[in-house]
């Protein structure tokens, strides 16, 4: 049973849902003694698409990418601090490209046993399902995937962790 989960990866994207997922992942890592990786993907694929479709300007793309770099740093540091408060070491990972592809590659490269992601949209449409990068990653990940729900309960779990 000690080999059940050796390495957990939580996907961070700057949303409240992903922060909740990180809190849950910290609890899991603490209970299982698994290594925890926090992964932020700069969605440069989407930015390139926006430039191609004339929604973005070149300087706008540059500005957003710069800000997303800063967001990644801030959120990963925040997750690492949350882990540190509970005695859990968090490995920070940042990459650029297609969210789905980067998540899947990281799962394979790091030999992740369990992918933890935040709650997906409450309202799912058939159309949206085709486009949501995180949902696509969930469906195509080669490891088990855990979707974290109930922000309040997770917060209480995290807070009660000694």
């Amino acid at each position, binding site marked *: 049973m000690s080999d059940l989960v050796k390495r957990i990866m939580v996907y961070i994207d*700057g949303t409240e849902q992903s922060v909740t997922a990180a809190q849950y992942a910290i609890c899991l890592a603490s209970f299982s003694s698994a290594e925890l990786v926090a992964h932020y993907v700069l969605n440069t694929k989407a930015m390139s698409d926006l430039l191609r479709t004339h929604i973005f300007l070149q300087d706008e793309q540059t500005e957003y990418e710069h800000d997303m770099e800063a967001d990644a740093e801030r959120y990963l540091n925040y997750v690492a601090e949350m882990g540190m408060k509970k005695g859990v070491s968090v490995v920070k990972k940042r990459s650029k490209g297609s969210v789905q592809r980067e998540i899947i590659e990281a799962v394979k490269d790091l030999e992740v046993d369990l992918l933890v992601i935040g709650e997906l949209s409450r309202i799912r*449409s058939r159309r949206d399902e085709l486009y949501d990068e995180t949902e696509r990653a969930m469906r195509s990940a080669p490891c088990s995937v855990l979707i974290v729900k109930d922000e309040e309960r997770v917060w209480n779990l995290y807070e009660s962790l000694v």
Partner: protein
Amino acid sequence: MSMINLITEEIVKVPLVSDNKLDVMRELVQILKNAGEIEDYNGVLTAVQAREDKQSTGLEDGIAVPHGRTAAVDGLKLAIGIAPQGIDFDSYDGKPSKLFFLLLASLDSAGPHVAALAEIAKLAQSKSFCRALCNAETAAEVVELMKGE
């Protein structure tokens, strides 16, 4: 947060009554104000205009995606307007714009903003879907179409 979660009847207006670009932007921002999504009308309008002044967000085939980031909003805000008559929005292909997605984000929401804009960009690729939206007669119909229910 997915763009789909932002869609309610309160942030959709059919039809838009404006007949020029500046008034469309005002009308879209007013939708958010009326829906209680923003407080600082002028701050939001200034951000939208500033982006629009650099280059029009009027795309091809009657779709426009005015957007911007500003401290005047929290998180992501979306307003949808439909103008069946078409409005000159200095679009990329020179055609009048009929379907407007106004998407605003706070200054610290670059990632979620990009993700939501990308969702709109992908929706815009479906000509039949956009045509259906443009033919919608009520906000409820737009919401139903967007949520695919």
